[in-house]
């Protein structure tokens, strides 16, 4: 079909979204897209969800580190509603997730340049002493996610003395 003339094309806003999970959670684009639409539908209703759009355009997730980012397309004038809906995503595929809208732009390229790819995602495994026991932890940019028996604990490098922290995985 022929392109719509410019004045009839819908205008969009692009939301850059930062995602964070416990390490080893696997989240894919389809699951995130589904949660976005559900969250929109639950908070804004079917008409609101349809108008806000909330399509995921880009999705990148590093499951070892448990961090990722996405670009979500929203209809112009609906970015506050979309922001509220995205804030209500508390789990994706049953994995608890932290979400934050890091910025909004009028073009995909501006959103990419300004808000995506800023987070250091280099992570490494280390042994730490947490709660008087030696544990394996995933360290990324000062954040330390400690693997407990059935769960994780979120800590930072401030929570350890040098002797509890600084030895590598042998």
């Amino acid at each position, binding site marked *: 079909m022929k392109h719509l003339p410019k004045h009839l094309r819908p205008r969009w806003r692009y939301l850059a979204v930062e995602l964070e999970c*416990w390490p080893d959670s696997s989240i894919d684009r389809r699951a995130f897209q589904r949660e976005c639409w559900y969250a929109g539908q*639950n908070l804004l209703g079917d008409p609101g969800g349809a108008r806000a759009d909330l399509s995921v355009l880009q999705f990148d997730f590093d499951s070892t580190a448990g961090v990722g980012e996405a670009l979500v397309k929203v209809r112009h004038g609906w970015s506050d509603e979309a*922001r509220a809906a995205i804030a209500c995503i508390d789990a994706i595929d049953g994995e608890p997730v*932290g979400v934050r*809208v890091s910025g909004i732009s009028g073009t995909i390229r501006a959103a990419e340049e300004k808000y995506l790819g800023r987070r250091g995602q280099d992570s490494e495994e280390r042994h730490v002493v947490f709660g008087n026991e030696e544990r394996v932890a995933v360290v990324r940019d000062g954040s330390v996610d400690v693997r407990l028996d059935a*769960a994780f604990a979120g800590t*930072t490098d401030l929570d350890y003395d040098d002797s509890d922290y600084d030895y590598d995985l042998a």
Partner: protein
Amino acid sequence: MYEAVHAHPDGDSTVARLAKTAADYGFDGVVVRNDSSTRAEFDADEISAAYDVDVVEGVEINADSVEQASGAVGNYRTDETIVTVSGGSPTMNRFAVENEKVDVLAHPMTDSGDVNHVLAKAAAENGVRFEFDLSGVLRTHGGRRVRIIQSLRKLEDIIGYYDAPYVVSATPRSHLELRAPRELAALGEQIGFSKPFIEEGLAEWGHLADRNRRIQSESFIEPGVKRGRYEEEH
């Protein structure tokens, strides 16, 4: 703007991790309000300096009876900057709003808890803040969420009429449950609160912390009397 958090061992993340994430998200500070049975050990000054975010020491008193709660309030009042009482039953709600040593009545509308004009008047008189707990709006779905939103709307109607003070929190128990102030304001708007209402509620934790720190500082003697600079010996 401040967020009131439950840190490890009450929650899943340590004070440091919550403070780090909160600073990232644009909060000015965090209030640590662990349950009185699961206190966190942390160095507020060190964390505050490392992440450039205010760390306020607090406690949330979760008691079965008024006597127990009253004793706990007396115990913690002198050491903790912010003392909150976990509401959610008619007796605890009433106890909290009638006690001027209590700073915040947390989640007053959960379980069998309810708020009426009597409680709102008492809270306004004693300066006890009602908490608008957004955790249920963020993290539940369906009929439960509908009822939670209804109860928050009711709370707002009543305290708005009596001009009772309030605070707002998403009550995170891990850094993953934190949400940025702009997100909370946007969410508030969707469920019928204005943006300034949510922002003031988040900022109120900070005002409370400032006031209590001033009162607990050594230069404060009693209302209207404080040690001035001419006190030095000649």
